[in-house]
């Protein structure tokens, strides 16, 4: 199993519902967020291009945060999801320094926190909170090892990109463009 998220930048309107859903579902402390929306404007007026992206931890296949973690608190579970065991984390910040996406943060309680691909929901067969609330249904979640899954089909049909592939991290959040 290789879990991945596919996000259609052509359908996203940047409403921030995914951000609020995540904060509510995961009890993210005030002032912090595990996902966020980026608006990219490319070009010079009048020929400009707008792209909206809902970003989060990319659950990289070659995760630098897991490599740099001195205690093994950051680890990869079945399905390729990158998780942090809170009571093994010493809060050294090595994983934050190693993340090209700045997807991790120091929780006010001290440990390092980030998107979990809603592991607690996905392991019960539900969708991640952000995916389940998206009003334009621009987010898809599924197994890339299964060629019949929605995400595999979409990546087969559409053009897509990942973020900073030059960092060599093999991100598992794909953006349809």
């Amino acid at each position: 199993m290789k879990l991945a998220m596919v996000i259609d930048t052509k359908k996203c309107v940047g409403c921030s519902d995914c951000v609020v859903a995540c904060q509510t579902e995961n009890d993210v402390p005030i002032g912090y967020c595990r996902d966020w929306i980026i608006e990219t404007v490319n070009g010079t007026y009048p020929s400009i291009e707008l792209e909206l992206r809902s970003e989060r931890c990319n659950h990289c296949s070659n995760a630098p945060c897991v490599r740099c973690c001195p205690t093994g608190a950051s680890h990869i579970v079945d399905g390729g999801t990158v998780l942090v065991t809170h009571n093994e984390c010493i809060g050294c910040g090595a994983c934050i320094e190693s993340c090209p996406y700045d997807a991790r943060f120091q929780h006010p309680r001290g440990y390092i926190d980030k998107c979990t691909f809603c592991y607690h929901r996905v392991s019960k067969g539900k969708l991640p909170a952000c995916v389940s609330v998206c009003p334009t249904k621009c987010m898809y979640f599924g197994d890339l090892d299964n060629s019949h899954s929605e995400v595999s089909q979409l990546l087969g049909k559409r053009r897509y990109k990942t973020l900073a592939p030059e960092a060599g991290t093999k991100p598992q959040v794909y953006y349809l463009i």
Partner: protein
Amino acid sequence: MKEELFISGRNIPNIDPILHIWHWPISVYLFLGGLAAGLLFFTALFYLLGKEKEMPATVKFASIVAPIALIIGLIALFYDLTHKIYFWKLYTTIRIESPMSWGAWVLLLITPISIFWVLSYFDELFPKWDLKFDFLKKFQHILIKNRLNMALALIPLSIILGVYTGILLSAFNARPLWNNAILGPLFLTSGLSTGVAAIILISKNHFERHLLNKIDIGLIIIELGLITHMFMGLYAGSQVQLEAMQLLVGGEFTIVFFGFVVILGLIIPLLLEFLEVLGYKIPIVIPAVLILIGGLIFRFVMVEAGQITRYLY
């Protein structure tokens, strides 16, 4: 033109707008760790070469600085952890891929050995004091017999400690300024040089100072070469590395880096030490202090500037 904007709002402490997870304790630790590595390396080296008599400061008197530096450094490291009560988890595993895990284990070995080394010379270092307890005297006796073994262990451990202070930073491919292979040798050389400078400050023996001076000249020349190599690597690198180099060349860290680290911390001490070797009367305290201050500022610049550099997407 390309503009990127958070439209969902994001202002996470220490991460937005620029990353600042590692603060001054990390820079201080990297300096003290390098200093201790340099001191212990030369202590062990000259002990193994049998120069205990000719170089008393190197082998005996200066070695007291190493455990003090290591302990202050460890306190600084501990202070910068945010989930402190779980720090012992470092010692429940060995993670070959994580430089920080290596460093934690090396520190666990080298700190007690550096204390034992001082204890083995306790009678000469503190002639007025007495090791009151019998078991301490017995332990000291064992240590004196094992000086050779301690010195043999200190050579590889001090080199690993010195390299580790650089590798710690260069392992993060997300920070282009740090992500170059030269940082390990560069921090090791800088650490050895600050170690020699500290011994020179303590030494009262003319022969010893003269020899250390010559060693330091060699180390500074190597360090200048390695800094040049670092810039060549960044200059020939990708866009992110070019932008990282901009911070040091023509950016906000230029004056601090070239003024305080390269000129005041390396070139001027090099010239002064060279003049001293040629026979001019130069107060040797000046180059030694300049090297120590330059080494400290170098760590601050690298830690602060490195965290500003990032991948663009």
